[in-house]
């Protein structure tokens, strides 16, 4: 009799355990569904805000997380000055230069971009076609890799397919730098000629024929462009070669300023991949202070 009761008890226990198992699994399933759904939404949204544009013939895309571009003033103030340069008066944050890189002087201005000797000038100077001298005092900051690729143009050299006239050159060689240039345009000054999107279209238009991509996600206020600049039949370190300069332009807006962030990468034989990684790190670190 005792044994029968014992077995009944055991049977009930097994049934209750089964029921608990069922309940737990049901809860697990529902929780799994919720977590799965939320994670998917989060990932999809995050991916929609992350823009990656590769240069042609390259597997390396430069990426921008447009969610991260804006930062508030108090968060900017908390950034480690060993890693970041916070320019409150200009409304943006950049990375401190990594090893092998240098940053431009504090008072660099748009007009200074015109005065570099024997160096390939930033295409930003071509905006002067429209704005004449009105941007001359607009602030610029530049992070530059100190080892340029020095190019010698020779008979038969071409730039984007157009023959280079050696008689027009004022220097025998031209130095091409990997660099990031930030032009912080006062809105009142810029709006005489351009909206933010107008700046993006004009910058891309300066590279007509070499533009590979324009990305402007509908839920983001940023424009990201990628262009190529081809130098064919030139000499580098005495060797005949072709070079493709890769440029990316990010166009962003703060309360008082528009920002043109121009990234130029000059691939060179034997150059450390660190140069590329540094450029990506600089773009990752760039913030507009809101």
């Amino acid at each position: 009799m005792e044994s029968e009761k014992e077995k009944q008890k055991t049977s009930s226990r097994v049934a209750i355990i089964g029921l608990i198992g069922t309940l737990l699994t049901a809860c697990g399933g529902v929780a799994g569904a919720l977590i799965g759904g939320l994670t998917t939404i989060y990932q999809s949204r995050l991916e929609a805000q992350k823009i990656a544009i590769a240069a042609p013939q390259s597997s390396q895309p430069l990426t921008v997380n447009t969610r991260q571009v804006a930062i508030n003033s108090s968060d900017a103030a908390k950034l480690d000055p060993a890693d970041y340069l916070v320019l409150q008066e200009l409304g943006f944050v950049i990375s401190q230069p990594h090893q092998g890189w240098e940053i431009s002087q504090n008072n660099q201005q748009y007009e200074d971009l015109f005065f570099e000797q024997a160096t390939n000038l930033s295409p930003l100077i071509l905006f002067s076609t429209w704005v004449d001298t009105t941007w001359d005092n607009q602030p610029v900051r530049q992070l530059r890799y100190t080892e340029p690729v020095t190019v010698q143009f020779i008979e038969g050299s071409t730039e984007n397919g157009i023959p280079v006239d050696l008689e027009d050159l004022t220097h025998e060689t031209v130095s091409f730098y990997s660099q990031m240039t930030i032009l912080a345009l006062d809105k009142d000054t810029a709006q005489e000629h351009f909206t933010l999107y107008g700046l993006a279209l004009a910058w891309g238009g300066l590279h007509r024929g070499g533009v590979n991509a324009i990305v402007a996600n509908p839920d983001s206020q940023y424009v990201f462009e990628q262009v190529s600049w081809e130098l064919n039949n030139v000499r580098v370190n005495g060797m005949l070669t072709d070079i493709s300069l890769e440029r990316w332009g990010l166009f962003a807006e703060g309360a008082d300023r528009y920002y043109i962030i121009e990234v130029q990468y000059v691939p060179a034989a034997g150059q450390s991949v660190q140069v590329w990684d540094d450029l990506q790190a600089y773009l990752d670190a760039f913030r507009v202070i809101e």
Partner: protein
Amino acid sequence: MAEQHKSSAIPTTALIGLVGTFLTVCGGLSGALISSAIAVYQVERENQQVAVAAPDGGEALNVDTSTIIITRQEAAGLDPEVYYVNLEHGFILHRPLTGWDAIEEMTVEEQLAEDNITCLVACEQPVFRIRYGEPIEVESDRATTVNGHPIPDNLLNQKEMFYGQPPWRVPFYSQMILNIFSKEVVQELGINNLADMILFMTSSFARQVNRIAAPEGSQFALVQFTSTYEGVRLAGEAARLTVDDWILFAETKAAYYMIEISYTPQSGQSIQVWDNLQTYIDEFRVIE
């Protein structure tokens, strides 16, 4: 014997519990999968819906980018009373709605000639246009401003060349214009991809462009422009006129398509005109 029966019932009960557990696990997993699939679908669909509004609370034009491309087979199945299917140039338009003129077909050269402009490039490329009723006659002169800025001298001189001495009377239409550019033809102009095409057609409107929507990896882009003219006259009265334009760029293997919607909020036209323009964009397809 009864004892033996009861003891055999114990594993049976446990087995039932296990089956129940197994079924619930399957149910939970299926729920998770369905839920994730719905979430992915919703997010993807949202990413395909692009709405670009004109500034100052103007109308927003919506484009469902998932439906722009259609196969020849699908195109052949469309009702010809509702849709204008042009297999030669690879596109579909909604036929003109009530109050709208018939579809006009012309070349770029003929289109530019209407404004006394001499065509220099891609002159034979086709243009299709649908206009609404009568235009608004806008009178402007050298003092007219666009978006708060004076019109540059070179443009004023061009105007004088085309229209003679000011004041100039220019008609503004609510309209839809479709330009098709063969890739082979525009390659000679240095246009190698959709990005080049967008820049070629828009980079000179740097002061008017309010928004660009060009999602990553997509075969289209939507650009919105607004031109606010001050110091103009409408029907003899001093006025301020705003013209909103949207341009949708798309591409196939053979051609670039540029469909432009122009709308003037001050036209006094019914809201139906705007709804019709939205319909034209909704129904526009390129045939791949």
